[in-house]
């Protein structure tokens, strides 16, 4: 009963509006002409490039298209893992050590 009343007052996002916007996104992908395998490869390469400079959460990495009225944007979402200062220093030390080792050999 309360749910029904709540539904009445809450402006529920109509499912046909959701369907239309989902469709538009899917069609942008379909029409962009980038086949699935290529998109997967692009995703991998993109991830590698970003990983050269940042530590990222791979599970949250996401490539998508966003459509506004007059333009289509490539949207790359890459959550960055921010390490604490101390961790970073430890990591740098390790890298230095490794560097020394490699110099010796």
């Amino acid at each position, binding site marked *: 009963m309360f749910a029904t009343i709540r539904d009445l007052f809450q402006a529920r996002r*109509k*499912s*046909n*509006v959701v*369907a*239309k916007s*989902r*469709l*538009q996104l*899917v*069609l942008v992908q*379909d*029409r962009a002409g980038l086949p699935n395998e290529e998109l997967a490869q692009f995703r991998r390469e993109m991830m590698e490039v970003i990983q050269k400079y940042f530590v990222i959460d791979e599970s949250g990495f996401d490539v998508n298209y966003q459509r506004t009225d007059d333009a289509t944007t490539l949207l790359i979402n890459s959550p960055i893992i921010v390490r604490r200062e101390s961790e970073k220093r430890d990591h740098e030390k390790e890298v230095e050590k490794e560097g020394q080792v490699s110099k010796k050999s």
Partner: protein
Amino acid sequence: MVEEITGEKASAALPKKGQAQVVVVTSGKGGVGKTTTTATLGAALALRGKRTLVIDADIGLRNLDVILGLENRIVYNLVDVARETCKPTQATIKSKKSNNLYLLPASQTDDKDVIGEEDMRKVLAFFKREFHFILVDSPAGIEQGFRNACAGADRAVVVTTPEVSAIRDADRVIGLLNSKGVEPMLLINRLDPDLVRKGDMISITDVQDILGVELLGVVERDDTIIIAANNGEPVVYNSKSKAGQSFDRIAGRLSGENIPLEHLAPKSIWHRLARRLGA
């Protein structure tokens, strides 16, 4: 044996040799009503006095014969005609309900890729002399069977339902048709105006917006379609069927008549009230 067929216009004079219009009925996605559309439009065109051949291009999974109630009369099929194991006219079956409607069934035992696009063009070239309209029922998908069905087609009826998956596949098919130079026209099937009004179904304008293709017509979700399929008699023979009337208007538009799109209003409040009360 010439049966008296009520309500059917006599066949008009045949067009000039090789002038039949070839229309492929396709969708990409399966189960949206391609075969029903082919059968019903074929029957509607025949009622309007157009000599019409419907070809089942879904080799291996034929169904157009069943929808037309002609499954017991099949002797030869499309593959036989393509391989020239029979004369083309031996393979066509006249409808029980119409003197203007003929079926060329698919083979049930062959693979989809047993014939190619050239075979299809050859078959069409022969029948183009005999008919005003040739409707080709395409298999689902976009592989060889689809390519065969499109070979030699002038125009295409792209059937979709107001659902995300069906519209997506329709878009894909429209792209392919454009690249083949086949003009696509849209048929929205199984629309429910009540659901659209509630905001729970994609509307006609939204489908048009998304696909950007000329709208040939809209058919509402209608139980009479199911009954028609059960009986093997296309729904246009049921004068009370709303879907049948829609298909008849679509057939008119297909043959060049200027018939405006009907206004598909949600059912009246009394109708809805009656339904809620279980009437």
